[in-house]
């Protein structure tokens, strides 16, 4: 299967196999007017299998969110057919507006206009906690 190479755009590479749709949804790529290609289960020397997302335009992405989904992802910015920049991602210290706190005792459960903010408390185990009540994300 071949997908046209892009002249000006972004290639999100080394996405863990199966995670591309999650990233697509979180980044809101469905709202873009340009071409977006999702490649699933591509053979990879490093990962065995990987997903790739190609976006046919250069836009400002939320790098923190990409790092949260998978810090091993690499992002290539392509300009005039050449790689302009390769970004290595890392786990962001804070994430806002992506996760929701599930603790019914948290202030965000009653004041729903408050921004949902999470902080990284354990980098090794990739644990984020609600900034307000310290409940672990996903619990």
């Amino acid at each position, binding site marked *: 299967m071949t997908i046209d190479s892009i002249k000006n755009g972004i290639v999100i590479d080394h996405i863990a196999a199966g995670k591309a749709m999650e990233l697509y949804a979180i980044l809101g790529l469905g709202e873009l007017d340009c071409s977006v290609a999702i490649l699933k289960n591509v053979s990879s020397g490093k990962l065995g299998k990987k997903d790739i997302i190609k976006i046919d335009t250069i836009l400002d992405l939320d790098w923190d969110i990409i790092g949260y989904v998978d810090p091993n992802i690499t992002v290539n910015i392509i300009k005039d057919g050449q790689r302009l920049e390769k970004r290595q991602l890392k786990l962001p210290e804070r994430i806002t507006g992506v996760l929701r706190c599930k603790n019914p*005792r948290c202030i*965000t459960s009653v004041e729903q206009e408050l921004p949902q903010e999470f902080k990284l408390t354990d980098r090794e185990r990739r644990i984020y906690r609600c900034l*307000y009540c310290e409940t672990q994300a996903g619990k």
Partner: protein
Amino acid sequence: MENVRSLIDILELSTQEIDELVEVAAKIIEDPAAYAHKCDGKILATLFFEPSTRTRLSFESAMLSLGGQVLGFSEASSSSAAKGESVADTVRTVSCYADIIAMRHPKEGAPLVAGRHSLVPVINAGDGGHNHPTQTLTDLLTIHHEKGRFENLTVGFCGDLKFGRTVHSLISAMSRYAGTRIVLVSPEELKLPSYVKKEVLQKNGIPYTQTTDLEAVMPELDILYMTRVQRERFFNEEDYLRLKDSYILTPDKLQNAKADLSILHPLPRVNEISVAVDQDPRAAYFRQVRYGRYIRMALIMKLLGIQ
């Protein structure tokens, strides 16, 4: 507001700042009259969205003892929260009427929201089962007065270690001192949450043991921190009734304790410490209440920038 110093979590204070607060509190205890007018003309607002007479009176007593004045409410039904006002709006309003705010709220994180929107310092006076930093400061002042140090102490925590926010906060605070050893005594269902063990005790290299047998570990302890099993933290009444009498401290159980053990309790107690223990000089929990007033005086002065 960014440039206003609040106190939401005990760990916002460095150990040096805690030492300074303990030092000021000691000076207040020595000579209260010297501090009787430090806050003349200042107003403390006590915003208590859930009742807590003890904590509220302690704050009010602290401010009045400094020469200041107090206003506020003692339950949500007598505030505009009953009309659906947000915490942010309540605090924006009240911070125009007062110089400092003490807030208690049943929802965890509410004082953090308040601190972000207030024009004046906000002190977290307890948010649900989450933080209660002035109780921890009270505990720390008590420990320092009773033992003369924070370092090299074996601290036992007994009772509800799962929902007990005072336990989690004091463990976090004590984990910053060299030579701290923690002994955890609780029924299986009320054990210290694993995240506190991993992210506080293990992360700081603090040795700890877990047991269900209080008497077996009693001889090791320098401090025994008793807690109440709190009805309001349970969603299920049956669980509360089954666990509420798990540990009751009696004079018999203290037979093997050190002669200089200090018994602390954040109060109120129900029956987890027998009244017969009150006569024991090692019972420090009523002295602890007194320290609560002095450390709050020191904290109010610090946050208001008063020397």
